[in-house]
């Protein structure tokens, strides 16, 4: 047994898992508010990261301004997407909605490749110290920052849903759309807002991953990794999404460890979460924290 390697991998898993958790959270946000399954979540990361990269390299903006401008852009982007594409589909069968988001993901992915090319582009360095030592383990500064950002986002979410009027409106809409509408909640605004928030939060995750690994279309794979996370945590639970993300992150890294040490099958990193996914769907399809769907006729 190689304990240092295992520990390092678990730590990596937690860090990546936190990012999965953030993306999963923004996925759940849309699902809760508007019952739309967003297969284009990974492309939100991609677009956010490319936008930020473009502002930093082509326009030579300082990081903080580029980052803020990216967030503004993503807000508008999320609202526009909801208004133009998703709203005409309210009331359509779920397979149509799924297909539309899949179509969107294809379009955005190809568009990004067309505009920025297929090669990974590094971000200009942001921190002076690239990596630091914690208890003998190497950790990149950006990853530490990403954990901090994830925690902050979580905190803001908790505050937003508990303490603000809009948060209350969103919770009401998620609970019962018709009742909320009849009580004067602006459901359309809530939909638009949920897409905007989701796009912004995903873009933050995208920028973090971009700073670490460089920006490339591989970023959109985070959108696929979201599914094991949200199913594990429960589709309509924000806390569950974060926890599911962490578990998936650790799981794929430990699977990688077991594979490299004992099994030598290869590719476990990519596939292990999906085996777990099937298993969960068989045993407990509503996940750890999700609401069990009880049907009455």
């Amino acid at each position, binding site marked *: 047994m190689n304990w240092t390697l295992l520990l390092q991998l678990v730590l990596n898993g937690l860090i990546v898992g936190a990012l999965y958790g953030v993306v999963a959270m923004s996925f759940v946000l849309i699902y809760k508010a508007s019952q739309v399954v967003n297969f284009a979540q990974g492309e939100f990361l991609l677009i956010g990261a490319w936008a930020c990269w473009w502002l930093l390299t082509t326009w030579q903006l300082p990081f903080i301004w580029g980052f803020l401008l990216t967030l503004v852009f993503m807000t508008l982007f999320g609202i526009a997407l909801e208004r133009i594409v998703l709203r005409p589909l309210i009331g359509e069968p779920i397979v149509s909605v799924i297909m*539309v988001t*899949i*179509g969107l993901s*294809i*379009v955005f992915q*190809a568009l990004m*490749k*067309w505009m920025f090319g297929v090669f990974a582009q590094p971000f200009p360095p942001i921190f002076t110290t690239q990596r630091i030592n914690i208890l003998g383990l190497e950790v990149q500064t950006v990853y530490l920052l990403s954990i901090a950002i994830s925690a902050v986002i979580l905190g803001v979410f908790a505050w937003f849903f508990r303490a603000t009027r809009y948060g209350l409106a969103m919770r009401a809409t998620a609970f019962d759309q018709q009742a909320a509408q009849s009580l004067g909640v602006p459901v359309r605004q809530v939909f638009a807002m949920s897409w905007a928030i989701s796009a912004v939060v995903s873009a933050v995750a995208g920028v973090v991953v971009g700073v670490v690994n460089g920006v490339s279309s591989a970023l959109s794979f985070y959108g696929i990794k979201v599914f094991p996370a949200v199913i594990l945590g429960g589709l309509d639970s924000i806390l569950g999404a974060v926890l599911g993300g962490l578990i998936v992150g650790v799981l794929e890294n430990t699977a990688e460890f077991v594979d490299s040490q004992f099994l030598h099958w290869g590719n476990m990193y990519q596939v292990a979460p999906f085996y777990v996914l099937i298993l969960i769907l068989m045993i407990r399809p509503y996940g750890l924290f999700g609401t069990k769907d009880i049907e009455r006729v």
Partner: protein
Amino acid sequence: MTAQTPSGDFRTSYRADTTIFPTAMSRNAAIAGIVLLALTPFVADRYILSLMIQIGILGIAALGLNILVGFTGQISIGHSAFFGFGAFASAYAVEHGVPVPLAIVFAGVVTTAVGMVFGLPAARLKRLYLAIATLAAQFILEDFFARAQWFTGGVAGRVTEPFSLFGWVADRDESYFYVVLAFVIIMYLMAANLMRTRDGRALVAVRDHYLSAEVMGINLTRYRTLSFGISSFYAGIAGALYAHYLLFVSVEAFTIVFSIQFLAMAIIGGLGSVMGSLMGTAFMVLLPEFVQWSVELLRGGVIDRALKLADSLSYLREMVIGAVIVLFLIFEPDGLAHRWKQIKAYWKLYPFSH
């Protein structure tokens, strides 16, 4: 979707209600169409033939998916994995001395079994959960293809033999066209017939309201799994035909993008329409060709230079496919089959359309 039949067309028996061809005219038109198709290898060139063969092969798989999605109301984002499984199964059987026609049938049967294994969760899962389960199936099967060297030949892929029957070898596009045509006719007739049977009606009932269906005594588990089985059977047969057309099966070919294209074929053609599947497939196969043609047309011009069109042809194709899916769902959610019916009704009822 309301039936677009002229007024005064009343069916008085169940037999009349379940015919494949409502009028003698439509039957004759179908036969004439098949005869015309059978003559194409004598007039069309290689390029058109290869496109038609592709439409035929993919159309069979798309029909399978349409039975699952359009008739039973399930979702599958893993169809290309089953398609690929069929391709490998047939190539594997041929490698072990099975004649090609039998290998194709064998591929269909084996893929049915695999589809039913992955379809078993479908009995419990609904809608979104099912979509995600089939997504997982896609990745697991893709991983299996890369891993199972004995079955798929690993990264190198697997070479296979051309179709042959009683000494007649279909190793050219002109001859393979007939093989595909025969399979298309058989598979489409089977699907059209399925919808006239008790089982077919049960599938539709499960789609329309599964609780009512269950109350009426339809075994949901059985029919959901059965639907997955049938859909995989079609995918398997089509995959096998694909393998013996290209004579080489590559591990990397059966990605999720391919699965999405199958879904797009079914949706653009029209969910729940047998002939729509073929229209949707034709649309999806011809669309990239059309994009390429338009880019060729613009080559060297101002737009080409400003947008780097020629260098990014593959992205353009992808983008157009995605955009077409989105636009169809927003503006024509019932698909091409519905539009075709409306056009027919327009001519039939002209000039008194009400």
